[in-house]
Each structure stands twice: as structure tokens, then as C-alpha cells.
């Protein structure tokens, strides 16, 4: 069970966040969500695929780190072995909460910074502090808030993006069959990718509308990112001394 609390400089004045990356601290995830505006950075290292949320059935964009559950091939020597760490990973252990407030008699919602107190990275002895001695935010906390803000807008845009892909039948399911150097075979199922045949058939009107939303770039970034499967495979072979 996670316990979410509104970050404040009274209850949380002594909290620190461990920045080491390892399974011990919950980084053994084999994918994480991403969004079109992040695709340029993501596609430099990770394959981008689309997955369905098991709770809602809605699609979302993901960056892939491994071939099976709990396998993150970028965790090396307690570090993340890539120059860019996806924002949805960077944000841990923070998250966005929604607070209802009344301003001039009008009900409004605004976003607040929350922390998951059960996250193993949260402690009081080592890592980055949240607050300065007299209660001001550390640059670390300010950065976390910025990350979450970007992530929030990214997620909203990703919803529109995948809806648009679905509308034009641009998603297709695929099974990824990989073969390691020892000839052992693995299959990843439940992933979706860009349907390139359908992409070629799009009318100029549709292409224009996708382009105007900057989605054409995202689509091609996603397609190009598939070459990173090879890199994942190499990492896996190395890990297994194959």
C-alpha cells in the first residue's frame, strides 16, 4: 500500500530521497510511460511501444527497458546506464495530486505535489534533501515539481495522441519474438506499434492534421525507436554472459 501525502516543510523537513537506481529501490520495471513530446529523447535509447492500461483498457505510450516483468536492462552498478532517464521514472517517489479549493466562492481544482511515503527511496539519512535548513525548497525538490508538471501535460497530450492513432487505425498489435545468443526464445505479447501500411495510405488531409499537432514527428520517432530492440538484446546477452 502506498501512502500519499501532500509535500510540506513541516512533516517532511528531514526527508531525503535516495537517487541510486536499483531493484532494491523499486527500479526493476520493464517499461514506463512516456508521451509524444518526450519521444525525441526516448528514441535515442529505448524502444517505444503502446500498451493498454489493465484498469481502463486505454492505450498509452511506453518506453521499454526489458523483455520480462521486473527486468530492467538499464540498471547497472546501482546506476541507470543511459544518458536520458524517462520523466516517469525520474518523478519517483513524487506524484501529482488534485486538491479542491474554493477561490472567491468558486470551486476550483489545482494540482499539488505529493510524495509516496512508502517508496523505499524515501528516508531521513541519505540522498537528496527536500528542504533547506529554514524550510525553503531545495533545487532537487523544485526540479521534481517541474518534472511532474511536464509529465502532467505530456500525459494529457498522450491521451489525445493515442486516440488520434486509433481513429486512423494506426495502431496494430504485434508479438515480439526475440532469440538470444544461446538460441533461447522469448516472446513479448500485448504490445502495439504503429501500423506502417495504414500510415502510407493516409490522405493528405489527415497527414496535414497530424503534422499540425506535431504527431507526424512522434509517429516516426516511435517507428525509428524499434532499432533499440537490438540494443536491449545485446544488454540481455551480456547480462547472461552469452
Amino acid at each position, binding site marked *: 500500500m502506498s501512502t500519499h501525502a501532500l509535500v510540506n516543510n513541516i512533516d517532511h523537513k528531514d526527508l531525503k530521497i535516495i537517487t541510486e537506481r536499483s531493484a532494491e529501490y523499486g527500479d526493476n520495471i520493464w517499461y514506463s510511460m512516456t508521451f509524444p513530446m518526450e519521444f525525441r529523447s526516448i528514441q535515442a535509447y529505448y524502444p517505444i511501444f503502446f500498451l493498454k492500461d*489493465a484498469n*481502463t*483498457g486505454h492505450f498509452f505510450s511506453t518506453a521499454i527497458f526489458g523483455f520480462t516483468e521486473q527486468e530492467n536492462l538499464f540498471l547497472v552498478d546501482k546506476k541507470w546506464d543511459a544518458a536520458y532517464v524517462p520523466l516517469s521514472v525520474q518523478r519517483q517517489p513524487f506524484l501529482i495530486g488534485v486538491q479542491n479549493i474554493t477561490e472567491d466562492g468558486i470551486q476550483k481544482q489545482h494540482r499539488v505535489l505529493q510524495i509516496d511515503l512508502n517508496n523505499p527511496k524515501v528516508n531521513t539519512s541519505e540522498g537528496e534533501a527536500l528542504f533547506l535548513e529554514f524550510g525553503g525548497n531545495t533545487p532537487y525538490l523544485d526540479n521534481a515539481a517541474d518534472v511532474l508538471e511536464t509529465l502532467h501535460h505530456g500525459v494529457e497530450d498522450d491521451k489525445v495522441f493515442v486516440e488520434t492513432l*486509433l481513429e486512423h487505425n494506426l495502431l*496494430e498489435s504485434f508479438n515480439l519474438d526475440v532469440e538470444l545468443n544461446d538460441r533461447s526464445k522469448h516472446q513479448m505479447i500485448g504490445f502495439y506499434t504503429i501500423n506502417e501500411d495504414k500510415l502510407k495510405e493516409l490522405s493528405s488531409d489527415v497527414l496535414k492534421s497530424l503534422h499540425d499537432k506535431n504527431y507526424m514527428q512522434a509517429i516516426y520517432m516511435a517507428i525509428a525507436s524499434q532499432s533499440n530492440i537490438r540494443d536491449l538484446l545485446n544488454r540481455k546477452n551480456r547480462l547472461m554472459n552469452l
Partner: protein
Amino acid sequence: MNKPLKKIIIVGGGSAGWLTAGIIAAEHLVDDSSLEIILIESPDVPTVGVGEGTWPSMRNSLKKMGIKESDFLLACDASFKQGSKFSGWKNNNSQSDDNYYHPFSLPHGYNDINLAEFWQPFREQVSFANAVTTQSYICDLGLAPKQISTAQYSFNNNYGYHLDAGKFSQFLQQHCISKLGVKHVRDHVININSAENGDIASLTTKLTGDITGDLFIDCSGGASLLLGKHFNVPLVDKSSILFNNAAMALHLPYPEENSPISSHTLSTAQSAGWIWDIGLTSRRGVGHTYSSAHTDHDSAEKALRQYITPTVGKKLAESIAIKKIAVEPSHRKEFWHKNCVAVGMSAGFIEPLEASSLALVELSAKMISEQLPANRKIMDIIAKRFNDKFLRHWQKIIDFLKLHYVLSDRVDSSYWLDHRNPSSIPDSLQEQLNLWQYQSPYHYDNDSVDELFPSASMQYILYGMGFVTENIKNTKRINQSNLAEQLFKENAQRSQQLASILSSNRALIDKIEQFGLPKI
């Protein structure tokens, strides 16, 4: 005679009419120059509003019409139906477990192996349905056939629907008019005008005047305005085989807003008929169909009210309004006559035991649509094929429904005894029963590709009812018992696995309301 067929007139605006219109319009380009479809619906005639169970075939029909499954589910208060459960059909002995399922999913590995043969030695340990499919187990747990992340119309377990028939016609009507180009005329047909060759030339309506057409589809229900009244095509009475000729129905509220929704139709045998129990999202639909030769209206009503008492309480059970429906177990001697074809109750009606009526509508509309005669000259050839095919369908339905009765051991009323009287059993069914004593139904029991009931359905009823197929000595070179054992094991594992990932029927419907179902 060579004039191209360009104008189809459908008479009747119930489920049959709109479903037929939708199926034809989804396949053909409908506009004024190529094909015109006009549906005439009398504002004076209410629809029957029963027929609330569908087959899995409905998924395909809706999909082809371009309907989003979530839209349909929510608009029609529909829920998922994974088959039927029969209670009290074997011996009505409260000491024994007198229940069995006819699930929609085929036995595991059905194309490769006939598991029924291998199940026989274990008949005392595990029910046939539980041994060969996960679906009966899933139904017992009240779970859904799919997950929220399963694409629309796809499934973990095969399913059809329970739906509100009135809302279904409304929903289809709107879709047919706004998306598929079907024209809607709300008017009363007052006269049928003949052409020289005996065809229907036009229909005279009260307000709109004469409406001409090339093909007339009679979806006017029991009234059978065109095929029955105008052409006098006679009914073939089937009440000597299937006795139920009366029905009464009622709508029941759920005790609570989030009461469980059953994922199967429950059919409970009575002393002179049986009671259906169908769970929609908004209410239950319950009804008693019975033989008026074996009981009277008052006793049938009493049995129905008694049936609902445990779930809704005595007060409501005794006061709730009941709607009476007269049915004649029969079908027309032919269904396509000259330039008129009947679809739905105008073609015939047999008790709803296996919810075959909407399935027959779909199948009829599909054949009309796919075989749509190019002109009048070839229409008679297609009419003949249509008649041959549907006469065979009716015969198969009648045999299959009768099968449910002849295997019973009930001795508590003349109804059940009469059902086992050899004179009431069609020769075609008797022949199959003789065969099945020594071999299980399998692919050879189906002789056409669009067979209504697959041989698997016959297995579920036979072995659910306790029928014994003698195991003759196995002389085959290849022993499949290892494969059978593996499939039984896999099925048991999959049952547990599915039970852990599927939510309840109600929970899934609630989620669909919130999130919709994914397109892929």
C-alpha cells in the same frame, strides 16, 4: 424481369425489421440510385418486446453495421451472456445436483479431438462442461467473459448478449437511419396491391399513399401481414413435438443498484413448461412458457410468482404486473414467396429455449443480403434455396429443442411423460439418439457450414442431461488419450487463471460505462 432490384421495402419496426435493415444496409451501398431501403413501421402496433437473449453471432452483426460495442451495451441495458444454465430438467430431485450448462465456448481443442469420448469414464467426478471448458466455471462465479482491456467484440470466453428488446429496436433504428441510409416511414399499411404476375407491386399506406418496391420483407411479427395474410402461406404446426404455446413475462428490479448480473440465461424446468430468467444491467426479465394443454393460466402464473418470491419478496412477487403472450409453435410452409420474404416471427415462432429467434433473423438477413437477387428473373431460384435452407434450419432447431426434453427422467407430470412419448419425437432426432448411444456427436453431425447448433451444443445437452454413450472398444492406431489428459489439465489450469483475472459481470459493465471498450 431483368430490371435490376433497386428498392427493398421492410414492413415492421421491431428487432427483426431493424436488424434486417441494418444487416442489408451495412453490406450494400444504400442511396437513391443503387439500392433504396425503406422500413415502414406502424405507429399503432406495439412491438412484442421479448427476445432478450442473443447468440454470439450478434457480435458480428453489430460489428459489421459499424456499431461501437460500448454504445450498444449502454443504450440497450445489455450485459454479457455466456450460455444457458438448465435447472431441474433431469429429475427435479432436490437431493441431486440437477443443473447443467450449455456454454457458448466450444470444448477445448475441439478441432483436433473429441474430448467427450475421453470424459465418459470420469462422468461421476466432473461435469462434462467443467471438464472441457472454462466457461461453466466462470459463469458459476458470476464473472464476465472479457476484461476492460479486451478489444470490443473480442473475448476470453465466447459470448452473446442479454438486452432490452425495446431499446434495441430504438438503437438500431437510429443507427440505420443516421449511419446506413435506411429510410423510415411511420405509417400504417392499409392495402397490399398485386402486380399481374402475383407479386406485391406496392403497399398503400394511410398517410404516405402507395409505396412501390422490388422486394418486400415481412417483419410484421405474429401478424405476418404479407406472407401470411396476403399470400396465405400456411403455418406448419409443431405443437405435437414442442408443446409450449403460451407465455407470460414480467420485469423485475434488482434488490440493490449493484446487485450481481448473471452472465447466463437461467432456465428452470416447471411441471408444464419452464421459466426463463435473464439479467440486464437495469433489471431482470423473467417469464414462464408453458403448455396450455398441460396446465392452466392461473397455475402457470402461480408458479411464476412463486419462482420470483425468494429474490424479490412476497409483496412484490404477488403484485407485479404480468404480460401475457400467446404463441403458436409453428413456422410457415415456405418463407420466400414470389417477391416477398418473411423474417422473424412472421416466419415462425418456437419457444425461446435456446434463444434462436434473433439468431434466425440474423441468418435470414445475412442470406438475403449476400444473395440479394440482381433482378426478378433469378429471384425464384434464390427463393427456392432460401426456403430449402431455412426449412432445414427450423427442423434442426425443433430437433435440438426437443432433445432437451426427451432426455429427462422427470415423472412428476404428464407434460414430461408426453414429451418422451415416441410419437412426439421426430424420426430425425430418434435416429441421432440411436447413433449417439455408440458414438459422441462430432463434426459429422453437422452437415452445413452455417449450421445453427454445432455438434458441441449437442454434446453439452446430452452429457449435461446424463446421457450415456457406450465406449466401444478403441481400435484406432493412434491413441489420443495423452492429448486428452493434457487438454483436461490445461482446461482446469485455465479455469483458475481466468477466475483470477476476470471481474464480475456487473463490475465490467460499470467500467465500460466509465472508460468504454478499446477499439483494438
